[in-house]
């Protein structure tokens, strides 16, 4: 038997995360990128160093838009559950319908019509990620609210507020974090797609999509490879970590 101190739910969740091998690989890749990208200007010139330094713009923007989108999605899903049955049905059917649309085209449309502003782009990219996060959030919360220990807490005389604070919030934290994480790869993909078409980040902000566009325009296959590979690698790591988080949140020991 293990000692109780290592059997806390957080320990078990982290064990499940580290048992998920793609997630561990993804974390390693992402950590390496996080070190290499800021250090890229020190490496001097060359296609690889250029591609690495372009990651600054892409990753920072993905983080920003992903946080906004993930946060908005979590708020959306939580409000839907909190506001009662009718609101829930309306809000979730909107989210489901939006999820079915190619929202990335909205990013292009907005950039094309209103010019390439960082704020507008961040907002639109966040919007592409939010509905999927909202759907995940609502599902997680609904299944959490059905769990028996909440009924038991009610039988133990706890008020609704105490149950929310002590039982629902702590148990929702990890599943909702896992749901919100899915906004990061979506944001990165949407931004890269828009930048590839020249409708993404403003000129002067380096990004993988922008570099790819330049390389393709010049017809230089050697220059295409580094940003394309780095982009694919980051997308894969983000998705793998997302899967690992979901396994950590959902699994039973």
């Amino acid at each position, binding site marked *: 038997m293990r000692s109780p101190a290592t059997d806390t739910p957080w320990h078990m969740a982290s064990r499940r995360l580290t048992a998920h091998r793609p997630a561990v690989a993804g974390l390693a890749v992402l950590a390496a990128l996080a070190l290499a990208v800021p250090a890229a200007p020190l490496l001097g010139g060359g296609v690889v160093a250029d591609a690495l330094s372009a990651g600054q713009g892409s990753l920072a923007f993905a983080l920003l838009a992903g946080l906004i989108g993930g946060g908005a999605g979590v708020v959306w899903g939580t409000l839907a559950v909190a506001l009662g049955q009718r609101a829930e049905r309306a809000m979730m059917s909107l989210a489901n319908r939006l999820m079915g649309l190619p929202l990335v085209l909205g990013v292009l449309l907005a950039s094309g019509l209103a010019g390439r502003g960082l704020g507008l782009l961040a907002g639109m990219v966040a919007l592409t990620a939010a509905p999927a996060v909202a759907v995940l959030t609502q599902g997680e919360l609904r299944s959490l609210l059905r769990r*028996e*220990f909440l009924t*038991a*807490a009610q*039988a*133990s*005389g706890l008020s609704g507020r105490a149950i929310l604070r002590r039982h629902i919030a*702590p148990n929702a934290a990890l599943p909702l974090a896992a749901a919100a994480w899915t906004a990061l790869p979506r944001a990165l993909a949407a931004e890269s797609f828009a930048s590839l078409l020249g409708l993404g980040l403003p000129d002067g902000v380096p990004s993988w999509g922008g570099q790819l566009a330049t390389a393709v325009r010049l017809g230089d296959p050697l220059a295409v490879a580094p940003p394309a590979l780095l982009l694919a690698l980051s997308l894969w790591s983000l998705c793998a970590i997302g899967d690992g988080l979901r396994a950590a949140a959902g699994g039973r020991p």
Partner: protein
Amino acid sequence: MSTPLLEAEALSIHTGRDILLDRLSFAVNPAEVLSITGAAGSGKTLLLRTLAGLPAPGAWIEGEVRAQGRRLLVTQDGALTPHLTLGAQFAELLAHHLGLDERAARQRAVAALEHLHVSAAARRLALYPHELSEPMRWRAVLALALAAEPTVLLADAPAASLDPTLRARLLDELAGWARETGAALVLSGRPEDGVTGPATRALNLDRGRLTESTPPTETAVNGEAPPPGPPILSVRELRVAFPLGRTWRGEDRWLTVVDGLSFGLAEGEILTLLGESGSGKSVLARAVLRLVPPAGGQVAWMARDLATAPPEAMRRARRDLQMLFPDPAAALDPGQTIGAQFDETLEALRPDIPAAGRARVIGDTLREVGLPDSVLTRFPATLAPLEAARAGLARALLPGPRLLVCDEPAATLSGVERETFLTLLLELRRTRRLSLLHATQDADTGLRLGHRALVLLSGRVVEEADCATLAADARHPYSRALIAAAEARRPALHGDPPSALRPPSGCPLRLRCPRARDYCAQAIPPLDEVSPGHRVACHYWDTNGSDAA
């Protein structure tokens, strides 16, 4: 004496480090039904797999298994291939085993399904597994096995997820098939899975060894006379219904789960709520504690109506009314230690106990339920089933309740552990002078523990009597079926319970009832008094008919 169809001789299985099965020897003759019972993890599944010739990888097998003819194993979950229709699965299996073409396979499939009393069998062959109800899925799984005409059929915990009434009948039909065709049938399961009922020979698997099965020597029995006295809990015309949305005409649709139920519970009394799953017993138990909002009626605790009680009064009432949940581990927050949750319960329900005094109360209660203090620092996921059940009991006892509402309190426990826990529950009830409201689908446990019983069907009481009377002289066909199933006899009800969304007119049992006549469709039978304290809701309770079988 005919030669056995299946024979194991000094069969041992070990992993190199642990001995899993230890020198088992037995034989199964034609037309014989052997049951192998054992607690969870005793090696039943491993044994059956080995007997079927599908040994687990990584295990060493010694000794010998001899079988004649075709062996077939029905696995524990009774899995069907999800993307194939039933007809296609029959065709595939029968083509493989018997080399039948599709038409012949179809005919045989229909015959096998009809043997297990599946109505409109030919039409069911077009269905996919997910379109079948759980009882129907089990009939299909077993029919699939019968159709392949095995000489040895091994079934691992067959139909364990079904209600006892349905399961007992299905197992009886399976045994009947074995006797008819001269096949050997091996059924395995936990002691409470009812596999011993149709068996001609019963063996018990305990820590890798086989013994002739004997009924457990120590069973929890309530020997006391029912205490007289006025009711402390009284439930009047309680109704619980859930909204289902609207029809196209704009009328609200409701799913009525508890339909105008009334009863009283005296101090120190044990009242059993007996019924199949879906009969409303669990919802009733929760509605009494106001964990499910009632749609109408009254629940009065000490002459105070709980439905209209303000939060403060409700909290005072919760101190007296506590609950045991069917899955005690799931009723504990996975993110907090047991100690933190106990503390929280005491803090909410007993503000009169100072924070410094809580540890003493918790320690005393832990000793009462037989748990060490070290359990307080552990998390629910690390508890064994019996420990979790004890922890759930301790939490319910902490505030010093006077009524325990138990919803299948031993559902996660098996065999000896189950009896240990129920004995503890009875003992604590006596020392603490608790009243118990005990909801269960197992008539045996329910009638053994209780003073008085209510038999529930579709949210209504169909029979009410004291437990001794009910055990000896149940009048309602549904009560008789529940008791028969608990004794592993064949219940006389046929077919599956109707959907709660489309209940039949008149008597809710009439579609399954052996006594049903035309009049049953017209009126819901009222509760008639048969003898003092014994009431039955059946139009024909006095026609003591042929439904004893």
